[in-house]
Structure formats: structure tokens, C-alpha cells
């Protein structure tokens, strides 16, 4: 019994310490989406230009849904990554921005200041689409494949490497190898 006491440290204290320590380093809002590998939510919304855009307009090719806001600091950081991705892939991937609790005029000012994206942005007036996707705060980005199945979620700003990694989950295997 006495020598078993030494097992307490490796068997109990170290795992418990690790559990607590890793818990402190985690953002409690960074949750695994239950939508992964399930059909993505469908929507029909109005773009900043006043046109109607629907998820069915994007269907048939992989698409990226980026929730952002003009008041969101990290959204500035990922803005260049999103624009560069759209420039690089062109029509191969559809992209759409969704305004998260933001005024259209403020969003227009953001785009005028940091650069137009080349893809469209829709207004989500009561935040319904954000709730359907399970968004907890911008920026959050969802990656949907050509069959309309949600394959990946990015919590927080995208970097070049995280963008490449998540895009690989929705691009056809051959296309991913080409690049």
C-alpha cells in the first residue's frame, strides 16, 4: 500500500494538472460544429448591392461563407487572405461574406478602406443565418463542398496556411494536388 502512493503522482496529479492547464488555454467559444459533414444551411438574402443571392446560386461548386463585421478587428487581418484566395481560385470556388450584426453603410466603408473583395456580401438582418451556422462571433468561416456538405469551420481569423488547409477539405482531390 505504501509504495502504491508513488503512483498517485503519475496516475492522478499529472493528468489532472494537464486537464486544468489545457482548459485554461482554450477559448470556451471555440466549439466543434455539429454541422460538419452535414448539409449546410440554406438561405436567400440581399447583397450589399441590393441583389438577391441564395445558397442555391452557389451550389454545384465548393463555396466559402465568411461571417464578418466592420467593427471586428481580426476581420481586418484576414481580409487580405480572403481577397487573395478569391483572386487565386476565381470561379473554381464561390465565396460570400455575411455581415454579422453590422450596418450595411459601415460594411461599405470597411470595404472602401481595406479593398473590395471581388465576391459578394449579404446582409443577415436579424442574425438568423448566423444562428443557423452556429456562429458565436466574427470572424468565422465555413467551407462547403460541391455537394452542399459542410466540411470545415474556421474559428477566428484565417491565415494563408489555415485557408489552404480548410480549402483542401472542399476542393476535388485532383484540384488540390495541382496547386
Amino acid at each position: 500500500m505504501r509504495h502504491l502512493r508513488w503512483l498517485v503522482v503519475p496516475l492522478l496529479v499529472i493528468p489532472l494538472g494537464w486537464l486544468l492547464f489545457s482548459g485554461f488555454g482554450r477559448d470556451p467559444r471555440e466549439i466543434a460544429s455539429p454541422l460538419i459533414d452535414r448539409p449546410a444551411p440554406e438561405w436567400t438574402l440581399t447583397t450589399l448591392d441590393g441583389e438577391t443571392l441564395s445558397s442555391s446560386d452557389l451550389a454545384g461548386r465548393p463555396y466559402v461563407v465568411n461571417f464578418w463585421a466592420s467593427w471586428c478587428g481580426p476581420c481586418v487581418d484576414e481580409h487580405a487572405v480572403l481577397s487573395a484566395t478569391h483572386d487565386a481560385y476565381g470561379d473554381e470556388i464561390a465565396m460570400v461574406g455575411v455581415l454579422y450584426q453590422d450596418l450595411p453603410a459601415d460594411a461599405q466603408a470597411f470595404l472602401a478602406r481595406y479593398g473590395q473583395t471581388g465576391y459578394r456580401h449579404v446582409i443577415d438582418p436579424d442574425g438568423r443565418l448566423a444562428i443557423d451556422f452556429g456562429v458565436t462571433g466574427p470572424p468565422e468561416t465555413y467551407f462547403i463542398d460541391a455537394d452542399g456538405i459542410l466540411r470545415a469551420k474556421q474559428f477566428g481569423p484565417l491565415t494563408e496556411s489555415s485557408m489552404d488547409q480548410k480549402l483542401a477539405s472542399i476542393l476535388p482531390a485532383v484540384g488540390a494536388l495541382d496547386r
Partner: protein
Amino acid sequence: MRGLLPSIALGALMALLALAVVFWLGTDADASPAERAERLGAQLRCPDCQGLSIADSPTRSAQEIRRQVSELIADGASDEEIRAHFVARYGEWILLAPSSPAWWVLPFAVVLLAAAALVAWIVRRSGGATAASPPALSADERRRLHEEAEALDA
């Protein structure tokens, strides 16, 4: 130490009884739609707050979820269906309380188990100490100690 065991057991029993009462109170079916909306609102986490329910939060997400809860109630959805509607979007994270009662009992069980192990360990240790009390002094040692004590007194 053994005297503590009944009070620990009593405490655990009272805690479990209190939990049972909470569950019993929380599942009455005759509530009005507004009461149901309020109760469900207190159970759902506001997505863009720090640890608040949607009932306690003024954010637009919270407002929209409250609106959807009322809408789902009006459509005849059960409490369970409404919770499932939001769990399908956010996962179990959206529920402020875990969905299975087992998750409530688990921490209590762990604490009780640990307390029992501690009590068993203390009881065993104190019992062991009396068994291993120092051996009685021999007559020679007793005499020598007596002499040394007298020498110190002198």
C-alpha cells in the same frame, strides 16, 4: 473519524434529494407558452456573451433566439425539440445545463468516492500507528533513564 461517515452519507443523500426536487419542479407540463419560453430561455446559452443565458442578455443573437423559441412554441414544438433545434446548430455547448442527468451526478460521485478513499486512508493510517507503538522499555533502560533524570535534577 468514523463518526464523520454518517454525516457525510446524510449530506450526500440530501444533495441527491435536492437534485431530484429540482428535476421534478423543472418538468411540469402545464406551463403557459410564455412560461415555457422563459424557462427555455434560461436554459439556452447566449452565443456571443460570457456565460449568460439568452433570457439575461440583450444582444441581437439572444433576441433572435428568444424570438425563434417563441415561434417554435407557437408551432407546437416540445421543449425537447426546441433544445434539439439549437443543439443541431451549436452542439451541446448551447445548453447551460448538460442534457443528461448523469453529467450532474458524475462530479458528486467523484467527490464522494474521493472522500471515502480519504476517510479509509486516514482510518487505516491511525489504526496502523497504534499497532506499531514503540516497544516497552526494558528494566535496565528504565533504571538508566531514572538515574540520568536525577543527575540532571542535582
